[in-house]
């Protein structure tokens, strides 16, 4: 049972990441490959605040969200000037830069040594030490993030995003400054990723830069591509699938020395098959 709870917590965290990334990729149609950077900044901000000052987790998470949002503002200001493939490439570049900072600014982040000993959250004296309570917390936060995302996508703001996705130039003709909309959604998406980062840091109680690489961003992208872009349920489904799949493959009985590599083969094959036969993902409406 503990293992299932552990898996469920990971799925919740990655669902939050999927939902938030979907705001930029699914709703606004911008291929962002830098989400792991904000996941990482949120995680590190929370971790440092928790370990250095013993601050309450929820306060640390909020501050982490603000910090992440501020950095996203800077990055987004540059990225919003690109579109299409260049947006993807530029965002990847920013991910590499943020990762390098997390890795090399050792006086701040402890570099590759990571930050161990991060405390579990506590609220009014109740401590989320047990995995079951942590799962409850994750699900509550997931529901909140889902609610926020639904609010955004159903609002008129969301409709402008869809219009940008379908044909950016057309909507510019109508007088909308699309860069502003792209920037706002990028910052919001980053702040929500920081929530996932805070959860992750506090759950594993140890973080190091290796969890926040470009590969991780690509993984998040795969989650929403698989689940279906612009679909909230798709993000959760994609997260569940891509987290459970490697865990399920542990049981598949591959000879141990190739088992891990076989998982990679399966993962890549899924991407190829998806693109060939169902590019809109499992539950998606919108094709890339």
């Amino acid at each position, binding site marked *: 049972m503990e293992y299932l709870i552990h898996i469920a917590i990971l799925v919740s965290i990655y669902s939050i990441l999927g939902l938030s990334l979907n705001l930029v990729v699914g709703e606004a149609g911008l291929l962002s490959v830098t989400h792991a950077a904000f996941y990482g900044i949120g995680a590190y901000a929370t971790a440092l605040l928790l370990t250095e000052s013993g601050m309450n987790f929820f306060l640390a998470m909020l501050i982490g969200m603000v910090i992440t949002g501020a950095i996203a503002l800077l990055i987004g200001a*540059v990225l919003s000037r*690109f579109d299409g493939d260049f947006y993807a490439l530029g965002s990847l570049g920013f991910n590499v830069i943020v990762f390098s900072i997390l890795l090399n600014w050792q006086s701040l982040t402890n570099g590759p040594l990571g930050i161990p000993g991060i405390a579990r959250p506590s609220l009014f004296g109740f401590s989320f030490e047990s995995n079951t309570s942590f799962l409850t917390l994750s699900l509550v936060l997931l529901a909140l993030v889902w609610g926020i995302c639904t609010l955004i996508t159903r609002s008129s703001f969301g409709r402008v995003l869809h219009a940008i996705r379908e044909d950016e130039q057309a909507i510019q003709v109508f007088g909308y400054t699309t860069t502003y909309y792209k920037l706002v959604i990028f910052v919001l998406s980053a702040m929500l990723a920081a929530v996932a980062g805070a959860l992750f840091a506090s759950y594993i109680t140890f973080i190091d830069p290796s969890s926040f690489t470009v590969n991780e961003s690509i993984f998040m992208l795969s989650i929403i591509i698989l689940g279906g872009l612009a679909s909230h349920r798709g993000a959760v489904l994609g997260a569940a699938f891509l987290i459970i799949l490697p865990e399920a493959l542990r049981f598949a009985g591959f000879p141990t020395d190739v088992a891990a590599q076989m998982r*990679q*083969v399966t993962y*890549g094959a899924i991407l*190829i098959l998806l693109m060939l036969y169902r590019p809109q993902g499992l539950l998606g409406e919108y094709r890339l």
Partner: protein
Amino acid sequence: MDIVSQIALNAVIAGAIYSLVTLGFNLIYGTARFFDLGYGALAATGGYAAFYFYTQLGLPLLLALALAILVASALGLLIEKTIYRPLRARKASGTILLVASLGVLTVIQAVIAIIFSSQFQTLSRDVAAEKVYTILGGAITQTQVLILVTALVIMLALALLLKYTLFGKAVRAVSDDDEVASIVGINTEKVMGAVFAIGSAIAGVAGVAAAFDTGIQPTMGLSLLLKGVIAAIIGGIGNVYGGIIGAFFLAIVENLGAWQFSGEWKDAVAFAVLILFLLFRPQGVWPK
């Protein structure tokens, strides 16, 4: 003066390898119009095939290299036929092709790791017998000179091919506008196949060059590819000559950066340059 010449030579050596990567990449992007991430894996395939033929089977050097390049080319062609062509037939967007190519990269890397293990392997000739030339106080080895010469030769050959042969004209026609090209009677599918075969062969050469210079690991493809992409953008995406300039420019900036700052920021510097170019000169140094 010594250190400056050495840094300059280091840049030349790195630039030579990047040029090889960019040449094939630009050729493929120019005609197929998407970022083929699988290209990186083809370079790795070339390197490993050379390792297999030369070190494991003990074939004579030139034969082993020729076979290796053939293997890379054949694999690239196979992927084009089975994955990219059907996708193109369905009018798949560039992003779908990119994600599919990501799947290709993942699968090929994992398969290489299964066959050859994840260990680092070397492909050099006897180190003691390596001749070292000194130019203006900086050192360059014979292997590195050979790599440089190879890069220049291939660049020239490709340029001549594209400019003066009927095939080259067909390639340029397809890359300008493939619908018009097919109306005019050019067999776009055949041209595309040939482009992938040639591009993949060049990837194989790049892989072999990297193998001799720094050795091989299953994960070598992605970083080579990213450098190639950055160089391509700096030089003007799709422009074969521009890519060469981009490659050396990138190498110079990287090595200058390593000289003036510390080496661990090398990746961040490369991507910062990319972002600057995307911001201020997206068409590259030498637009088509």
